[in-house]
């Protein structure tokens, strides 16, 4: 067993990799910081403008009433008014500290390519492959890095930035820190999508990104064809409507585990 997995050796290898990738991790933290800072600045600005707009509308309405003019009501400007109210309500909530969109989300998805694109490369992977750690320790280090360590680091950093942001006057929506929503709404879908990249990195020897994208395109087209084949089958659709949500979740979980499993199977069997 010591030859297969030794926790102290795994820890040493993981620590080594973390130091090796620290520049990429710093870039990710920088992007997170920018993303949140811009969001906080934009939201605060929007909030201020909306407060001004509501105050002005109220003043004009009062003046119009005093002049005997028909005031602006929901009936004559319904869409604008509703949209403004909605925006105002949203803005009042403030910035969600886990604003995982845009560049940040993209980085999360391609994390395996950023870190492990060199795996199986005849020259770039030689030191890595020859380092005294088992294939399982190396694989688990990569998995921990992409699925647990870097995401947790980024989440913690996001919280810190939001906390500091609030101290300097930004509107932060702390109630968004709902662990269940966060886990199901962001973490699982992101890591699930990332599992595709993780699989591609360990499955293909070269041109990993291109081959992964091509495989996914073929997979999606196959799924579309498969679903359209059953389109006219009402019974199937009724069943799908009942189970679609849980089935989709189950499929996502299953696919994620299968992709990790395939990568795990392939890694020790690939020559360099």
């Amino acid at each position, binding site marked *: 067993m*010591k*030859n297969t997995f030794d926790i102290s050796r795994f820890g040493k290898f993981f620590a080594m990799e973390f*130091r090796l990738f620290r520049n990429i991790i710093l870039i990710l933290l920088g992007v997170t910081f920018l993303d949140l800072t811009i969001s906080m600045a934009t939201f605060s600005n929007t909030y201020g403008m909306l407060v001004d707009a509501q105050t002005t509308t109220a003043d004009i309405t009062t003046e119009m009433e005093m002049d005997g003019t028909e005031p602006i009501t929901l009936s004559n400007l319904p869409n604008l008014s509703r949209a403004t109210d909605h925006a105002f309500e949203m803005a009042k909530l403030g910035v969600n500290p886990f604003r995982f969109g845009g560049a940040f989300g993209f980085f999360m998805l391609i994390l395996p390519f950023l870190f492990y694109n060199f795996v199986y490369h005849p*020259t770039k992977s030689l030191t890595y492959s020859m380092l*005294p750690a*088992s294939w399982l320790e190396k694989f688990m280090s990569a998995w921990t890095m992409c699925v647990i360590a870097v995401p947790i680091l980024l989440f913690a950093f996001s919280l810190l930035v939001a906390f500091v942001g609030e101290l300097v006057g930004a509107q932060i929506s702390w109630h968004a820190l709902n662990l269940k929503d966060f886990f199901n709404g962001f973490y699982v879908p992101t890591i699930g999508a990332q599992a595709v990249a993780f699989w591609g990195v360990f499955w293909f020897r070269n041109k990993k990104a291109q081959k992964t994208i091509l495989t996914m395109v073929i997979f999606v087209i196959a799924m579309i064809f498969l679903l359209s084949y059953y389109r006219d089958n009402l019974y199937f659709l009724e069943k799908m409507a009942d189970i679609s949500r849980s089935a989709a979740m189950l499929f996502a979980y299953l696919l994620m585990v299968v992709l990790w499993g395939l990568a795990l199977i392939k890694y020790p069997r690939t020559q360099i």
Partner: protein
Amino acid sequence: MIKIQDLNFHYKASQPIYSGLNMELHRGNIYGLLGENGVGKTTLLKLISGLLFPTTGHCSTFDFEAKKRYPEMLEKIYFIPEVYTLPKIKMSEYVNLYASFYPKFDYQKLNEYVDVFGLSQTKKLSEFSHGQQKKWLIAFGLATNTELLLMDEPTNGLDIPSKSLFRQLLVEAMNDQKTVIISTHQVRDLENLIDPIIILEHNQVLLNNSIDEISQKLKFVLNEKSSDVTLYAEPAVGGVWCVEPNTDGIESKVNIELLFNAAILNKELFKKLFIQN
């Protein structure tokens, strides 16, 4: 220490690199691995280190199945490749990252090697010239104190003084427990250093013998002209260098370049002389 049994290997099924290769390598030697381009020298180093897997047959290193790449095996091996990519970090950082994986790593020796090779500690490794990068890998490899050091064309890219330093450092670092396998075309750089010599030919081994064994069976003499028994002849100042069967027990210095050329020209004879006997 390294045992290769009935090993077959190919990249393409139609072009086998090794067919039924058998070989044993022992501790305390600096093996010279010679062969023409594409004959499989680097492949053999990669099979020994577990980076490539035999198609059939076995390759065991330190009694471990090499392809399993067990940590206990890997901590006894350091591989200096011919082509490499070093990270954009300084050497101190490189040492911090990787040295602790090698239980017998000698930090003091590393500093000595770095000084001897005249490497700058302030520059990033990626900013070094090709020769400097190779010097760094040699210095680090020697400092790991591993029992098996695999070197693929170690003198390529080294300047003349560095080649001499390399030889000195390697001899100093050797002991009975260590084995070095050097794959090279630059036999003159390593003359007086490598012993035994392995000559590879497509699919097979032509020779895997010590210098003593070679000189007992072959003689390297400067004659006026070649004769019927000459296996290989090369014109030289004052005559012709000849490689001939040593039927009269003459002691002569083995010239590796002549030996290699003679082996390539007389494959069957060499196999009969060195492998089958």
